């Protein structure tokens, strides 16, 4: 293919990949070649309502980008809000991204709007760490609970004195009563941040409940050794940290059994 032919073909194909069509009174859809990873188009709509021009995604970006999320956290929406406001746009009632305009949209307005949508999508991608952490906690909790021979356990547990005396939230992912009457508290960390917070939390717990037996289950490929050392230093015991890959609980269950937890061998 000659250079001239390449330029001509690409230019024609690019132009053909853009389209504007009416979808209702005062509303038009702008189709572009920018797609989500599942092939659905990034949502761009021109709106003209009560004399006000704007570009909007009709809430499609948040619902599409977060469709496999099961926790819509305040922190994520705060990040989305920062991205949106940074470009002079607004985060609407139904999680829509709205960019008010002084007149009919120009190609540059559409370009700016596409940037916003793409950046909000990036927030979803960077939120995967949060999602992976919450999934890891759930996986470890279920992995342990399904093997317990005792009903004496609680998820997201905190000693009553800690709840009464503190403003921040300090939680262990699992508390399990042992045959000897003591409580084992399990923290599950697939991020370095979570391991650091777990060290802080067990320190807080042991000020009011020095009898608690801590265990940190950590993802061996994702948690920095510095955070593991911090947890060990906090409780002054090197044997309380167990590397746990999702689905592989043998070492963890053996450790829990040695601490007096009634748990199956498999």
């Amino acid at each position: 293919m000659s250079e001239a032919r390449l330029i001509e073909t690409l230019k024609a194909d690019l132009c053909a990949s853009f389209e504007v069509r009416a979808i209702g009174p005062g509303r038009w859809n702008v189709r572009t070649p920018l797609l989500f990873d599942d092939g659905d188009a990034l949502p761009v709509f021109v709106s003209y309502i009560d004399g006000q021009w704007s570009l909007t995604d009709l809430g499609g970006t948040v619902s599409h980008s977060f469709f496999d999320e099961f926790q819509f956290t305040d922190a994520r929406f705060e990040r989305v809000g920062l991205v949106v406001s940074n470009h002079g746009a607004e985060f609407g009632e139904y999680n829509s991204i709205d960019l008010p305009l002084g007149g009919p949209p120009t190609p540059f307005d559409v370009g700016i709007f596409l940037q916003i949508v793409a950046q909000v999508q990036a927030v979803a991608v960077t939120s995967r760490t949060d999602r992976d952490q919450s999934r890891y906690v759930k996986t470890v909790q279920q992995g342990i609970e399904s093997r317990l021979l005792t009903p004496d356990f609680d998820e997201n547990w905190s000693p009553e004195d800690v709840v009464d005396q503190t403003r921040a939230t300090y939680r262990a992912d699992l508390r399990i009563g042992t045959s000897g009457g003591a409580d084992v508290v399990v923290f599950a960390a697939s991020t370095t941040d979570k391991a650091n917070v777990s060290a802080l939390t067990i320190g807080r717990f042991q000020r009011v409940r020095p009898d608690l037996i801590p265990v940190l289950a950590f993802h061996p490929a994702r948690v920095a050794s510095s955070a593991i050392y911090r947890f060990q230093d906090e409780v002054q015991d090197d044997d309380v940290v167990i590397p746990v890959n999702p689905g592989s609980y043998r070492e963890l269950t053996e450790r829990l059994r040695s601490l007096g937890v009634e748990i199956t061998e498999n």
Partner: protein
Amino acid sequence: MQLYSRANLNPALAHDFSVGFIYTNYSDQSYRVIRCNGPHDTDHTNVIEGNVIVRSAHIHRLTERYQALRPPRQDGFAEATDAYLDIVGALEYLAALVNLQVSGALFR
């Protein structure tokens, strides 16, 4: 396997919904196996075949050839469907498709 559903919060956009199955393996890797989407106001493009589904309900499926793309688009392939009209219908259709027996009401 996780069953999920999501819908646009705007009541005027009730046709913007998605229900599907996500499989997560022991390495914590997730795969969107199948998703039944509503006829949302944006188009879907099958980038390998080059066809566009315009504002119609469509079903995304995990395929080997779309996973082989760079970057991978695991469920980038979709087919238009008229098997359901709303999110409840989509969930019932998905349940029948994967032989999931529903006990009680799906939505209250």
